[in-house]
Structure formats: C-alpha cells, structure tokens
C-alpha cells in the first residue's frame, strides 16, 4: 500500500516534534477550532505537527473528556444515509427548494468511500471533475479538497457540493441537530457555519488552481438538518462571509508555525511514547494561551488550565477585562488593596478596583 499523502509532512521540523507516531489528520472541525483561539502557540504547533493530543493529555495525567455518544453518531450517520439514499433523492428535494436547482439536469457523482487509503485517488477525481465545469453534476458526494494550514497540506471532506443553475457552487453541510420551528441551537449553527467556511475556502483554492474563477463558489452555504422532532430534512441558507474573513486572517497568521517549530530547542518533543516528565518539560517550552472556552474545544485544555491557575485569564475573559486586564489574580488583588503601584495603563483600573474593594469591605463587614 502506498503511504497516504497526509502522512508525508512537508516540514521536517514539525515532523520531528511528533516522533515516530503517525500524524493525526486535520479536519474542518480542528481547523475551525484553530480560529477559536488563534493566539495559542501551543495548540498551533501541536496541531500542525499532527500530535495525538488526547494521548498526550492522557500520558501527562490530564485526560480530557471528549467522548462522543454512539447514539449521537448513529443518528448522524442514519440521517446522512437517508438523505443520500437512492442517488440523493431526498436531499435533492430539499436543496431544490432553497437553491433553485434545475430539475432535468440533476446528476449525482459519488467520488468514493471515506477511507484513508483512497485519499489520493479521490482528490485526483475531485480535481478532474471540477476541472471541467461544463460537465458539473448537480451533486458531488465525497469530494476531497485540500487546504494549506500552517505550512502543511490538509485533506478535507465536505459532506457534499451542490451546483446551482446559474453556475454557482454551494457547499452543503449535513448536521443532525434539529431545527424546531425555524430555530436551532445557536452554538451548533455557528460551529457548522465555520466548518462550512473551511470547505468554501478549500473549494475556492481548488478552482483557482484549475484556472477557474474562485468566486464561482458561493459564500452562501446550505445547512441540512432534521426538522422539528422528526427525521424529515429541512434546508437553510447561511451567509458565511464573516467566517471566511476570520478564517483567512487566522490561516495567514498560522502560516509561520513551521518557523516557530524550527526555533524550538532540539530536546523538545511530543512523542507520546516519551516519559511524562519529558513531555511536561517540552510543553513548558511552547507557550499556551488558556481561556475557559478551550475546555470544550481542545483536548489539552485541562492541563493548560492547571498551568494557568492563578491567572485572571483562567477566570474567563470578562473577569480579566473587568480586573483591568492584569495578568494574575494576586496582582489584581494587590492593586485593589493599594499595596502595588499601578502602571500608567493600570491607573484607571486600579482606582476602580480600590473603590470596589472598599465598597465590598464596607458592606460585608
């Protein structure tokens, strides 16, 4: 079997960090998460090097609970299978309503199963198919796109790409959370929108590399979800221009992760077969920027939280801001007590903190 292309990491400095263990595959979800906390060097380096973060966290004694219920997986798969059954008949029906698909021209191309060893072949077929826009089908299932993230090529698999009669391509994202009376969980919708934006960007790059106009890919993506309390699908169009702009900005910043990795001392390694003490010492060399939001987005968050104990950031951004943006809890309390001379930027915050401390002491005494 030929090695899958994702295992060929173009950056030796990043490769070295991981040791002999195989790289973890990036996907739209992990890229979306990168945009959530772009200032975190640790996450950028570990993700770019393809380090197995759940195992790393486990090894150093800070395991994270990121399990997924098999019931949720089963339902998600069942919903997608139902939509794509019979040449995507049901899917076409809902897409037709929102996208104005031209009925007679509808076709359905399945570019192959989702498996690691078909990546190259599927990507080649995807390029071939989108290389000849005059023969676009209406629906392309399992396309395989690529995106350069932090200097390395990442393979991405949108659920589906649909084709509209005016010649615009739309990314279709299938999700199994329900839209009840036209409303859905806003956190889930925004996560889906960022993921879809990742696909839009990758598809635009593909078209540009093939000599087509990237603007053929619409910034309007289609979200297909179950309606109300049934499995009946419903589709909504979401404008992801804002998410695209954020994503592009973060990817540009991440482009230099290879340089960051190259600057690390030779002893730094995240090979998960190393003893915990070595791994902890390595982690110490790569700076993290912990925020409570990390707990739901990064497998290493429990360790970073432990490390950040005593910082104002660990209490959450609103608390940190209200404490005048100072680094540590001890510093904030010293400013409040007047035992520490504030810097000119801290002067206003210090006055407010002292007044607050006085009021609390007066009332609670």
């Amino acid at each position, binding site marked *: 079997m030929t090695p899958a292309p994702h295992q060929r990491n173009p950056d030796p400095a990043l490769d070295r960090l991981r040791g002999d263990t195989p790289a973890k595959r990036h996907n739209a979800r992990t890229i979306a998460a990168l945009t959530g906390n772009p200032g975190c060097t640790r996450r950028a380096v570990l993700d770019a090097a393809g380090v197995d973060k759940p195992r790393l966290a486990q090894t150093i004694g800070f395991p994270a609970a990121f399990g997924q219920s098999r019931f*949720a997986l089963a339902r998600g798969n069942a919903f997608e299978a139902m939509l794509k059954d019979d040449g995507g008949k049901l899917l076409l029906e809902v897409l037709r309503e929102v996208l104005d698909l031209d009925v007679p021209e509808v076709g359905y191309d399945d570019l192959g199963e989702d498996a690691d060893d078909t990546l190259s072949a599927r990507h080649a077929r995807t390029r071939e198919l989108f290389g000849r826009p005059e023969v676009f089908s209406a629906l392309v299932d399992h396309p395989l796109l690529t995106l350069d993230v932090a200097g390395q090529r990442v393979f991405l698999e949108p659920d589906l790409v649909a084709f509209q009669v005016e010649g615009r391509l739309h990314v279709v994202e299938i999700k199994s959370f329900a839209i009840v009376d036209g409303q859905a969980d806003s956190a889930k919708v925004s996560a889906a929108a960022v993921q879809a934006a990742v696909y839009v960007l990758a598809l635009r790059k593909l078209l540009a590399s093939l000599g087509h106009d990237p603007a053929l890919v619409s910034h309007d993506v289609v979200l297909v979800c179950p309606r109300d309390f049934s499995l009946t699908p419903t589709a909504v169009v979401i404008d992801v221009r804002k998410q695209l702009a954020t994503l592009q900005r973060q990817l540009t910043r991440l482009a230099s992760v290879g340089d960051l990795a190259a600057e690390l001392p030779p002893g730094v390694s995240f090979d998960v077969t190393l003893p915990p003490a070595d791994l902890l010492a390595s982690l110490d060399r790569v700076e993290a920027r912990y925020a409570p939001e990390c707990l739901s987005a990064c497998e290493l968050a429990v360790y970073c939280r432990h490390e950040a104990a005593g910082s104002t950031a660990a209490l959450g951004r609103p608390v940190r801001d209200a404490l005048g943006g100072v680094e540590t809890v001890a510093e904030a309390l010293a400013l409040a007590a007047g035992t520490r001379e504030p810097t000119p930027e801290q002067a206003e915050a210090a006055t407010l903190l002292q007044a607050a401390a006085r009021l609390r002491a007066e009332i609670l005494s």
Partner: protein
Amino acid sequence: MSTLTALARAQAFAEGRAQPLATVRHLHLHARPLVLIPYTMAGEPNAPLAAMVGTERDDPQVLVVAQPRNRDDRFAFAAELAEVLLPYLESFTGETEAVAIDRGRDVRYRYTDAPQLWVPNPGGVDFLRLFGRSTRFRSTEGEYAVPATVPLLGRWLTFFGNSAEVAGSSLLLTAVQALSSHWATGQSSAEDAQLAALMGWLDPEPGRTVFEAAAAAEDPAVTPPAGPATDPGFDNDVLAPLISVAEPDVAKLREVLREQLLPTWHLMWRARDLLAQLPEAGRVASRWDGDRDAFSAFWLHVAEGGAPQPRRDGAVAAAARLSRLENAASRYAVQRAFDDPLIMAEYRLVGAAFEGEVTLAKADRVDDTGRRPVLRPRIMVRTTETVRVEPGAVLTSPARPAQKATVISLQPSGAAVDVVLELSGGMGRKLVAEPGSVPEVGERVLLTTLSEAYRPGGAFPEPEQTPWTHGGPPSSSLEADEQ
C-alpha cells in the same frame, strides 16, 4: 462582568472560598417545590430518556423511557410525568384570596399559593420548553391519539418555560442560576455551569478544599452530569448494551439511571439549603404575588378551554411579550438594588448611586411661586463617591422610596462633592413635613438614579390592525396552530 463581581471571583480564588454577591435572597423559596432532573437521549432532538422527579427529598421518583426513539414510549413518559406534575399543580388551587382592582371598585381572585419547579440548569429549562412544544399540540383522538393529560402537560410545561424568561419570576428556577447570582466562585462561569463543580465551591464535602471538590466534580465517572445531556461514556458502556436489545430490562435500566441521577438530586436539595440560609429580600413577596397571578390566570385559561400557546407569537403578541419582559427585567434590576446594599454597590461604583452625609437641611422650605404653595424642602449631601448625575436629574433613596429628590446643583469641595437636592412627595399632605420624612443633618443617605416608579406598559394595536411593516394582519388564526 462588573468590577465588583470580578473582584469577588479573584478574592474567592485567593481565599479558596466562595464569596457573597448578595446579602439577601432575591428569589422565593417554596416550602414544597417540585424538583425535576431530565435526561435526554444523545443525538435525538429533545427525546426524553429519564427523569428524577418529586417533592420529597427522601422520595425521588424515577421515570424511564425504555426505547427513546419510539414515539409511543415517549408519550407514555409524558403521561407519566403528567401524573406527577398535574396533581402537584392542582394542589395549589384550593384556596383563593381577593385582590382589589380598578381602584377598589372590583375584586379578582387568585390562589394563595403557586407551584415552584426546580431544574439543575438552563439546559433543563430548554428541555421543558421543547418537550412542551412537542406535546401540547398532540391530538387525543384519531390514529396517533395520546392520553388527554399529554397535551395538558405540554401547555403547562410551555407556561413554565415562558415564565423562566421573566426576570424575577420564581415559578421555574435553575439551581445553577439561583446559586451563581448569590455567590461568586474562584473558577470561570463555564465551570460554574456544571452544578457539581459549582456546589464543590459553595459547599465542599468536609475535609476537602474547594479545588479538590471542583476537580472531583468534573470526573463523570465520579460525578455524573446534571443533564439533560448524559455522559458519553455512560451511553456507550452502560446504556447501549441495555437498550439496544429488543426487550430492554426496564428494572435494570431504572436502576442504572437512578444511580446516575441521584447525585444531582442530592445537590439540588443542598443548593436549596444554602439559599435558605439567606434572609429573603424585601421585594421578593411582591414578585411572588405576580407569579401567583400568572399561575391563577393560566389555570383559569386552561379550565375555560383556552387554546394552547401558538408555535410562534404573532407580531402584536410578540411585541407585547417583549415589552412585558423588558419591564420585568428593569423592575427586577431596580428591586434587587433597593433590597440589597451589595447590589446597590454596583451602581455606586459607576456613579449611578452615591452615599453621603446630609450637611444642610431646610425641612420647612415652601415654594409659593405657583398657584398654590407647596412643601419643597432642600438638603445638601456631601459625598466622596463618584457622582455621575446632572442638575435636573431626579433621584430616589431606598430608605424613602416614595420621595423624589431633584438635583439642584453640584459643587466640588476638595475631594468631595456637595449635592443640593429639592425634595417632593412622601412627606404627608400638609405644608409641614411629617416627622422623619426629611433627612436630618448628620444622617447618611443613599441616592440613586434608579427608580421604582410605575412604568406603563406599551400600547399595541389589535392583531387585526397589525401594520404592514410587521407582516400585516395574520391571514388566519388557524395557521399559527396547525401542526
């Protein structure tokens, strides 16, 4: 986040102990609440899996759904829950009291008590609201008939879901919000959202530090989640083998779910114990009167055969509802500040309230420039606190809520400010102020821009008069109620 709350969090972390955010309890604590902990099936939209429910601390009842994907089982669960909830609601409809309306020309009746539901967190409220949505339109006849109690349950759950949006209402409370509005922990609000982690800070087990208690609370194997989402590990290892068979062992299922739910059940009652230690705030009773009004009115609406709540409000109903919610929210904010010096401190910190000493007082000043002479005493208050008011602003003092104090002038004096105020109202009907109604020299007074004055509700057109900007008159009332 206000500076005061942020400071309280910093202090809590440094001291390893939760810090108070309130000196009194700003919610009604019912003697016989109905505690309800719902669990849902992962992946399914709002499909109930189990619930622990009851009014007795020592006697929780466990309801389970053997096949959560089966709609008959789902509605059987709804019927079971109705068997618990509906009799509980009815138990408050025994006694009524008369309330004078229309300036005493008429009376209406309301129940002397009302129900109070407790769920662990806002996710629990969402579950009840959506479960209400999925049951209140069910038909009691035809092919998919459900017991009559199911749609009735749906209407009541919707009622409770709606009242949870009203600031200051105590009909449906969440333990997480009730606790975190009264105490600050030394962790982030994301962590506070887990009831067990929050309780770890507020009431750690003996011999444990808050840090140890909060850490133990995060391990789902030690502390199962408070729902409505289950622990994925529990789903995969325990639940899946039990329910993926054709005939699930219901007794066994009930047992494992009881084990998962019981720790949260105990936390809920301990949360109530903590809140019970705080004295009730002065204005809680009047808000509970409002809750009793709402309960009585909806009971009557259901008894008279009124329609279930529509899936979505029409334009006029939505605007009226939003206006009521806004009024309730601002009233609640003012009442909390008037009841609690620690809440009022938030306003003092930003200059919307200040405390100072009365340095001059002319209690018998009469303004006779108008048609009739009126009593308008003036006082001067010296304060060292931030004052962000302009001359002409009307202030109130929580000690004399019926009295208005209009700012006449502000004069800096060293590090302090001298504020001259003219008083009106709350001094009796004569041209001489009632004793004690005008602050005396030397008295400490607190003055604020917050006001408890009655705000009239907005005026809205009839639904048939909906302007075209808001979609025009609804085409038919049937449309809103169709399935």
